[in-house]
C-alpha cells in the first residue's frame, strides 16, 4: 500500500488527532500540539515505507507531543493542565473542585480517567508511568475522595 500524498493523510487524521490531544491536554494546549504533531509527521513522512497503520502512527506522534507538553507543564506548574477553557465546563469544574486537595499525580490520574475518559494505558503514558501505576494512582485518588467529607 503506497504512502498517500500528505494532504490525504492530513485530511484523514486531523479529526482523530485533535480529539486525542484535547482529551489529554484540554482545548488551548491542544491547538499548539495539533500543529506540532503534524509538523513532526511531515518531517518523518519521507521515511514511511508504506501506507498501512497511518492512523496508529498519527495518534502515536500526537501522544508523544502531548506527553512532552505534560512534562513541561509538570516541570513548571504544580497543577494539571488548565481545564478552565474546556468545552464541557460543568463536569470538569465539578471534578476540579472535588479533586483540588488530592496529591498531584492522583489528581491528574483521576482527571484523565473521569474527566477525559482515557484508558489506564493512556494515562500511564501521559504521566510517564506504567498503566498499572496509573490504575493505582486513580483508585487511590478515588478512595481518598470517598474518605473525605464531600460538601
Amino acid at each position: 500500500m503506497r504512502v498517500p500524498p500528505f494532504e490525504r493523510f492530513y485530511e484523514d487524521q486531523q479529526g482523530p488527532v485533535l480529539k486525542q490531544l484535547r482529551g489529554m491536554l484540554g482545548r488551548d494546549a491542544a491547538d499548539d500540539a495539533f500543529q506540532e504533531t503534524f509538523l513532526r509527521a511531515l518531517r518523518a513522512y519521507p521515511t514511511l515505507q508504506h501506507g498501512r497503520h497511518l492512523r496508529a502512527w498519527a495518534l502515536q506522534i500526537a501522544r508523544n507531543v502531548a506527553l512532552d507538553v505534560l512534562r513541561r507543564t509538570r516541570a513548571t506548574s504544580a497543577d494539571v493542565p488548565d481545564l478552565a477553557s474546556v468545552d464541557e465546563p460543568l463536569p470538569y469544574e465539578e471534578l476540579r473542585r472535588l479533586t483540588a486537595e488530592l496529591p498531584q499525580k492522583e489528581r491528574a490520574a483521576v482527571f484523565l480517567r473521569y474527566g477525559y475518559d482515557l484508558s489506564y494505558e493512556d494515562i500511564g503514558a501521559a504521566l510517564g508511568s506504567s498503566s498499572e501505576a496509573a490504575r493505582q494512582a486513580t483508585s487511590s485518588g478515588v478512595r481518598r475522595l470517598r474518605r473525605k467529607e464531600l460538601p
Partner: protein
Amino acid sequence: MTVSPQLDRRFRDAAAAEGLLDVAFELHDTPVGRLLVAVTDHGVCEISYDADPDAEAERLARAFGSRVLRSPRPTDEARRQLDEYFDGKRRDFELEVDLRAAREFGRAVLAELARVPYGEVTTYGTLAARAGRPRAARAVGTVMNRNPVPIVLPCHRVVGSTGSLVGYAGGLERKRTLLELEGALPNA
C-alpha cells in the same frame, strides 16, 4: 472532531514556512474557471483546469515527492501574476517554472514556447523547427497537450498552419478566451 479553519490554516502556513513541503498547491478562481496552481522550490510545477484535487495530489506526489499539501502562501505570487494577466495588466510572467517532470524533448519545446510573445501566435511546425526537430509538429502537439503550466507557458498561442485553433488541453473555448484577452484571435 472538526478542526477550525484558523487552526487548519495555521498548520498549512507553518508547514510551508518550515520548508517541509515537496509541493504546495491552491485552487484559484479565474475567468477561465478554477485553476489548481502548484509550486515546488524550483518554481511553478503545475497549473491545471477542472482539477480533481485528490487525483492531482496523487500525481504531484508521484512526480515530486509525497509531501504535497494544499498551502496557499507559496502560491501567492503565481496567483497574483495570473490575476494581473487576466486583468490585462501583465503581458509576461516573471515566474520560475519547474519542468523536472517533463521529458527532454518536451523541455526543449517548452523552452521555445516560453519565447512566443504575448498577443502573437505561432504554429506547431514552427515550434518544432525552433526546437530542432522540424518534422515533429505532431510531437509538439503532444507536448502542448501535456504542458504542465498552461497560461504561464503559453501553449494557447500555438495554432494550426491554416490558423485554426486545433486543440487545447483546457478546451477550445478557453484557448479562444485567452487569445481574445491578448487581442490575438486569428481569423476573428
